[in-house]
């Protein structure tokens, strides 16, 4: 057992940190610190800077543009990215569809899509959830029927994150209605500009527009847009969802938010002195920091295990990451709410453009609190995570 980072790893951390200092546009960083949404251009600008450096798709195999970093290096990179903070690469392209394409796609698909994912020439979105298929994803109904060299797609997806920006979608479609539910699904990709695709915004409780409903009405898609084999889509979906084991803890995000809590709490007064000096508040914050330290170490255990023994068999501790990671993220947003107290109330629906100077320091704190309720719901709700632990780890 040795918990120290090597000299090389420490130097790597410094290199990454310095790169962020030199290259993340200050306005982008400021917006992230304040919990504001970024514009499409701001995100793409940053991702292309990252891609130019060769870090855009860091965890991909080298032949497709990856870095060949160790698990520990990936961990360091993510932690620094989250805590700087800088925008994370677009998960739908880089972490989700990219690995499915280089693992299961044909040569033509790899050539066509992978470089465009890396440079965000295409913005990808995810067509998985449907109104009737949330946790029970395999019950999905969107249908793709083969007609000659085309698929005809009909149905509806929902919770489609940032579909308003998207050029491409990867979509789970039912292609064999007679098969039992997991076996009749295929993984098909197509352009969001196709005729018959309609995107309708969903306004969430934070007042923002991140997610959408997407409707398919006789959308014609070339047959060759099928990834891998017909009716094997469920396997690819499971592969995709299992790919992201450690990033989900978002330790860096929570660290950054705790620094912000301390900063604001040293300025906001309660009982005539900074609320940071209030014993009850400080103990709550320290309790959260301890939980986060435990999570960080649990994550390091998983990372070190992967680094040494490969990614084959997931470390049982990895199931903890999603549950604790989301709970801690939510606690940090609660603590921010507590810091600003009555100034949580002003409703700044146009806050993203910074138009309301008067609310500069409180803007986005309440919306961020509301928005972060999602983290225990998406990516397999925490209740689903508990089912997974019960079955896969405890054998119940």
């Amino acid at each position, binding site marked *: *057992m*040795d*918990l*120290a*980072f*090597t000299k090389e*790893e420490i130097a790597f951390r410094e290199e990454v940190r310095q790169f962020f200092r030199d290259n993340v546009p200050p306005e982008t960083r400021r917006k992230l610190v304040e919990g504001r949404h970024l514009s499409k251009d701001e995100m793409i600008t940053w991702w292309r800077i990252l891609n130019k450096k060769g870090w855009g798709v860091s965890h991909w195999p080298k032949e497709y543009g990856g870095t060949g970093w160790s698990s*520990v290096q990936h961990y360091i990179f993510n932690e620094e990215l989250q805590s700087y903070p800088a925008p994370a690469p677009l998960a739908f392209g880089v972490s989700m569809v990219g690995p499915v394409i280089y693992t299961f796609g044909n040569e033509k698909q790899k050539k066509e899509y992978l470089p465009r994912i890396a440079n965000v020439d295409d913005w990808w979105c995810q067509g998985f959830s449907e109104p009737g298929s949330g946790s029970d994803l395999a019950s999905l109904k969107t249908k793709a029927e083969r007609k000659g060299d085309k698929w005809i797609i009909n149905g509806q997806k929902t919770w489609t994150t940032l579909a308003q920006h998207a050029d491409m979608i990867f979509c789970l479609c039912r292609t064999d209605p007679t098969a039992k539910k997991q076996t009749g699904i295929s993984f098909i990709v197509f352009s969001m500009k196709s005729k018959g695709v309609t995107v309708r915004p969903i306004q969430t409780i934070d007042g923002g527009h991140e997610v959408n409903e997407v409707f398919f009405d006789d959308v014609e898609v070339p047959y060759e847009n099928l990834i891998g084999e017909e009716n094997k889509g469920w396997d690819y979906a499971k592969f995709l969802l299992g790919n992201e084991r450690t990033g989900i803890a978002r330790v860096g995000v929570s*660290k950054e938010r*705790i*620094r912000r809590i*301390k900063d604001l709490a040293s300025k906001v007064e309660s009982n005539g002195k900074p609320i940071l000096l209030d*014993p009850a508040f*400080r*103990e709550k*914050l*320290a*309790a959260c*920091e*301890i*939980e*986060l*330290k*435990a*999570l960080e*170490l*649990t994550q*390091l*255990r998983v*990372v*070190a*295990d992967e*680094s*040494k023994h490969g990614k084959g068999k997931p470390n*049982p*501790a990895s*199931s*903890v990451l999603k*549950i*604790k990671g989301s709970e801690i993220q939510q606690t940090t947003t609660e603590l921010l709410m507590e810091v600003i107290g009555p100034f949580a109330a002003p409703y700044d629906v146009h806050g993203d453009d910074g138009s309301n100077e008067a609310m500069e320091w409180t803007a986005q704190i309440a919306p961020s609190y509301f928005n972060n309720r999602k983290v225990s719901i998406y990516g397999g709700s925490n*209740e689903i*995570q*508990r*089912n997974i*632990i*019960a*079955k896969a*780890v*405890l*054998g*119940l």
Partner: protein
Amino acid sequence: MDFDLSEEQRLLKDSVDGLLTDSYDFDARKKYMKEKGGWSKAVWSKLAEQGLLGLPFAEADGGFGAGGVETMIVMEALGKALVLEPYLATVVIAGGFLRHGGSDAQKAAHVPGIIDGSKTFAFAQLEKNSRYDLHDVTTTAKKKGDAYVIDGEKFVVLNGENADALIVTARTKGDRRDKSGVGVFLVPSDAKGITKKSYPTQDGLHAADITFTGVEVDGSAAIGNPEDGLALIERVVDDARGALCAEAVGLMDESLKETVEYIKTRKQFGVPIGTFQSLQHRASDMFVAVEQARSMSMFATMASEFEDAKERAKAIAAAKVQIGKSLKFVGQQSIQLHGGIGMTMEAKIGHYFKRLTMIENTFGDTDYHLRRVTDAGGLV
């Protein structure tokens, strides 16, 4: 970065697990509990034979020069088996005082007896009103020529009855809560002026309340600086806290295992109760609590070797907070999921719960350590 055990550490783990599987089932434990002072001399000898009592001591002193990880391995195993023998008091605490503060002569006089199992120790520290503050000491050690005369009362001294010698904290100068002026003294158990009242504790161990009335020891009994021993005491107690974290992880591992086994086999409404989702989710939450505790026990183990005393203390305090929260949840829910049978002395699960509960209140509870982490400015 590597969380795996080395080859030697794995061998150590296998050997201590093997020894306890052979000699420490639940029925054997009940017998050991009835022996004098509440534990088995035969088991203690076996621990000595396997070299476990000499692990942390330097090779020059006859030990193996092992580190915190080895202690963690042993304490986890002792927790799993609900071991009663005074490893913490003798090897971790008394051994710690000798290693970190003992003179060559003191080491030569006492370490061999620990290693060969012939001598055990007890730590007489707690006072009626000191609660968890190590510097809050009213017991006095007054200088008389070259000697010291100790007067005062100490409570809940684990292994107090059987110990051959006591490590006593006593004030050589200053007021009750002064941080300076506290010394550490090694006092033979049969010294004139010592009276003991022994009793079993809630978790099946044995302790004693000990009164010191004009107990005279010579100057060589002081370990470290008798007028400024707090840093040494904190150092050793931090090691003990780390060891307790590891013991608790062993106890929690077993509690979860027993509980999962129980809900897989206990049937109600015609099915194993482990098929009910509310129970599955509770068990999953217990798993999460155990893993978070394990991570922090590892953190405490690493921290015991930090050079900066403040960083060490903060890290170990943080670990004790996580352990305290986890053990309460895992302990209580183990009983809940066992239902009525969990309430009986006959079932093993309650004994895990009782030992876990006592660990929370040893050397600082969750609130105490949370305040220490808070006062130290947190971890981020």
